Structure formats: C-alpha cells, structure tokens
C-alpha cells in the first residue's frame, strides 16, 4: 500500500468516526425527546395545569401547585441571585484589579463546579434549620447560590467584550466612570448579559437535588413562601419512584412541561442575542 493510499484511508476512517459520534449525540437527544413527547404527550391534559395532585389510588389530577411552586421558587432565587451576580459582574469587569477580584473570580468558578445537592445542604443548614421547616424561601436560597456564580461570570465576560473606545468616548464627554458604565457600557452589553441571565434561570428551573430538602414538596397549595412547596423537578422525582402507574404518567407529563419551559427560555435567550433584535 502506498503512503498516499494509506493517508486517504486514515482520512476517510477518521471522518467516519467523528461523524458517527456526532450522529450518536443527536440520536440520544432525539431519543430522549421522543420518549418525553410520546409518554408525556399521552398524559398531558388540561387537568395537569389546573388541578391539585390526587391521592394514590385515584386517577387524574394535576400538578398546578407544583407549576406555581416552581415559579415562586425560581422567582425568589432570581430576585436574590440576579442582582448580586449582575452587580458583582460589573465590579469584576470594571473595577476588578488585584488580589480580591482574583479570589472572587476563582470562587465563582469553584462554586460553579460544586454539585447542586451541596447547595441544598447549605440552604438546609442556614434556612431550614433555623426556621424549623421546609419552605419555598429555602429552595429559593439554594437555587440562588447556583445562579450567582453563573450570572457574575457571564456578566463580567459580556462587559469585558465592550470595546474600550466606548468607555473612553463617554469619559471624554465628562462622564465619570460609574455614569459611563450605567449609560454606555451596560446598555452595550445588555443583550449578552440578559442572555446569560435567562440561561442561568433556565438551569436552576430544572434543578431537583437542591430542592429535595429545602422546599421539599407539598400535595396541596402552599399557603405562604414559608411553607413546604411543591416544584416540578421534585414532583418528577417523587412520582417516578412511586409504585403507582398513574403517578408515572404524571411524571412524564411534568417532564414534558419542564422541557417545554427550558426550550422556551433557550429560544428567548437566542432571540435576545440575535442580530435582528431591536437595538437600544
């Protein structure tokens, strides 16, 4: 075999291997999607969105309380996590020089890698134990601890991508640094920053582990943010490991709804980032 033919053979072979791996990735994704659509689609109905869960043995019912509960928990987490992450990101990008910002950056990256269940443990010990019961608030705290590091880093990165000449342009007109940041730098980076926030929220909306022992779960409407609160991811967990066929059906439906929410958030993030989006 000549060297030339050998090289051609390797070329073809490697193309085949890489293409097969790419195909495998897509196949797994579509397999999951198909599974969810098939099983979830069969069980999804209006009652799922409007009714409370039925006790085991009875068929029907829905997860209206978990949908609202998830929304509450994610909202609490966003209200705490986004402002802290956003302002911290501004600090890192615009004022961050020296040892302290290095520590902040490093800590944020470390926090990003901490398993989410550990965040649940943390929220359990600082919120659930002092309050003596599970609550939406505790779940929100756990999720916000996940949201902060991603928000701070994406905010920093998008602010850093704003050309230095824009900052100089604002300063040259007599703006001070803070004014330049607020009126020029942040607006210029806002689309990217907003995308990062949406993706961060999408991530925490699907977390189940940190909620297991913080917001816990509830078969009824939560009466307040201080009460144990149902959430979609935890409902999926609880229902999927139950011995009841009807609950399995509901778990699939919940999975499909959660997927749809993720998809919606991802698409909106892409729309915000796309060049066609309205400029400031």
């Amino acid at each position: 075999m000549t060297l030339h033919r050998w090289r051609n053979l390797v070329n073809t072979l490697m193309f085949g291997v890489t293409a097969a791996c790419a195909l495998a990735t897509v196949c797994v994704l579509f397999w999951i999607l198909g599974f969810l659509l098939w099983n979830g689609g069969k069980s999804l109905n209006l009652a799922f969105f409007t009714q409370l869960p039925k006790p085991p043995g009875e068929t029907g019912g829905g997860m209206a309380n978990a949908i609202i509960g998830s929304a509450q928990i994610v909202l609490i987490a966003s209200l705490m996590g986004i402002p802290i992450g956003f302002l911290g990101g501004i600090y890192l990008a615009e004022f961050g020089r020296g040892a302290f910002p290095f520590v902040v950056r490093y800590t944020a990256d470390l926090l990003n890698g901490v398993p989410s269940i550990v965040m649940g443990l943390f929220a359990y010990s600082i919120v659930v134990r002092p309050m003596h019961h599970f609550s939406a608030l505790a779940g929100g705290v756990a999720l916000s601890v996940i949201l902060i590091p991603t928000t701070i880093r994406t905010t920093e990165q998008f602010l850093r991508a704003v050309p230095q000449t824009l900052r100089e342009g604002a300063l040259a007109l007599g703006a001070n640094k803070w004014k330049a940041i607020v009126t020029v730098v942040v607006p210029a980076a806002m689309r990217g920053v907003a995308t990062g926030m949406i993706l961060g929220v999408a991530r925490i909306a699907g977390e189940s582990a940190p909620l297991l022992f913080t917001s816990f779960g509830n078969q009824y409407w939560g009466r307040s943010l201080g009460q144990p609160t149902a959430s979609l991811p935890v409902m999926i967990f609880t229902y999927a490991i139950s011995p009841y066929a009807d609950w399995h059906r509901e778990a699939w439906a919940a999975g499909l709804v959660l997927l749809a929410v993720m998809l919606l958030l991802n698409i909106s993030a892409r729309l915000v980032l796309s060049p066609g989006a309205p400029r400031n």
Partner: protein
Amino acid sequence: MHKMMGTLERSTIAGPPAPPNPGAAAERVQPKLKISQLNFFYGAYQALHAVDLEIASNRITALIGPSGCGKSTFLRVLNRMHETVRGARVTGEVFLDNEDALAMDVSKLRRRVGMVFQKPNPFPKSIFENVAYGLRVNGAPGGTRMKDAVEHSLRRAALWDEVKDKLHKSAYDLSGGQQQRLCIARGLAVDPEVLLLDEPSSALDPIATAKIEELVFHLKENCTIVIVTHNMQQAARIADDTGFFLLGKLIEFDKTETIFKNPAKKETEDYITGRFG
C-alpha cells in the same frame, strides 16, 4: 523658546482676539493651552521627554511624527484620558487658559477639552441620543432646547442634512465617515473650548476624509483644534501650526508652512522628505 515665535506672531496678526491676560505684556497673546516640561511615563518607560508647547487659540495645531513617537500620548494628556491607563504617570504642567488642567476636576476639564478618537466610536444608541449624551451627562434638561442643541451640533458637524430624517435610527446604521462626523457632533454638543482629534480620518476613505478636513477647518472659528495625524499632507492642508515629535521629544514646532518648506531641524526635514518614518 524660539519654536514658539511663529505661533505667537501669527496669532497676533491673524488670530481672533484671545482672552485678555493681565499678567502678560500687551503684545503677547495668551495661549489656549500651555504645556511646560511635560514628562510621561508608562510604568518605568518614559514616553514623553520635557515637552514644552503653547497652543494658540482658534487655530488648528497638527502633531506629526512616526508611529510610537508619543504624539497620541501627548494628546491624551491634554484632557487627561491617560488616567484610564494603569501605570501612566505625568510630571510637568498643563495650563488651560490660566487654570491648572492637571489639578482641576477631570470631568470639568473633559467638558472643556473634548476628544474625537481614531476609530469612530458611536454609542449603541440612536443618532439623537449620541449627540445628546454629553448634555445629559452634564445634567441638561430634555425638551425643545435639547432638540435645538442636537440640531445645532449636527449642523456644525456638517451631518444634519444626511441624518435629519433618521435621528432616532441607530448610529450604527451610518457609514464610517458619517459615524466619525457624528462623534465630532457629539463632542461639539457640550461646546468645548478645545477639540482634540486623534487621527480622526485614518480609518476612513479619501472622500470621507475630505469631508472631515473641511469640517475641522471651519470648526476653528469657535474652537481650538489639536489634531494628531500620520498623514503629512493632511497636516499641510489644514493646520496653521505643526509640531514634529520623534522618540518622545518635540523636535520642532512652528507655522505649518515653515515646518514643511523650511524646517529648522535636520530630523524634521528627513521626516518630511520621507527619508524615514
């Protein structure tokens, strides 16, 4: 000091009346900017060496020289933009009229000494908001007066006719040359006494460049212009006075005509005639 003579002479004859200076002799004209013994350091590296220069009011002063000679660094000291660079340090004096520019409030200084940059840098806002920015930052109210001020600045920058129907479109929809004139309008809106231009047409095509030059030429009626350019023809075309920088030193400063036709220093002549740089 002989470098100054040309400037002073001409501004006395042709220049518009400069602000009175009670301390000076009657025939002496007060310079708009007076720079003495200016040294500039980036960390341990010295970028400017003992620069002395007087910039006359209502004239166009060009600063020329090869890349890295310190002309842009010098320009950025005049409105203290160098302070955004870490490790930058200045010794010496810069006086704007009779005030110490290095000691006054930096926002105030930059309102009086505006700057236009090499690459057009409009803000990601509408054309109108770009021009209004400086006024808003300095606390001007909106409304009709703002509209008038924006129109006035756009007219001064010879851009009004091209943008009057799309004031609320994004500034990024404009061409490069229009964007640069927008940046000039933005700088003019706060009514600066001095406008610094840092190679304002180096990123533009010849037609856009010609428009900028014509515009700058007319601006000197109300404004003192200092322009850094790597284009010697540009300096020859528009500048009243020209300074030649080399290796961080101001080698020669005189009337533009003298610099180009009869330079006193050999380095200047070598550069002008294209022997290096």
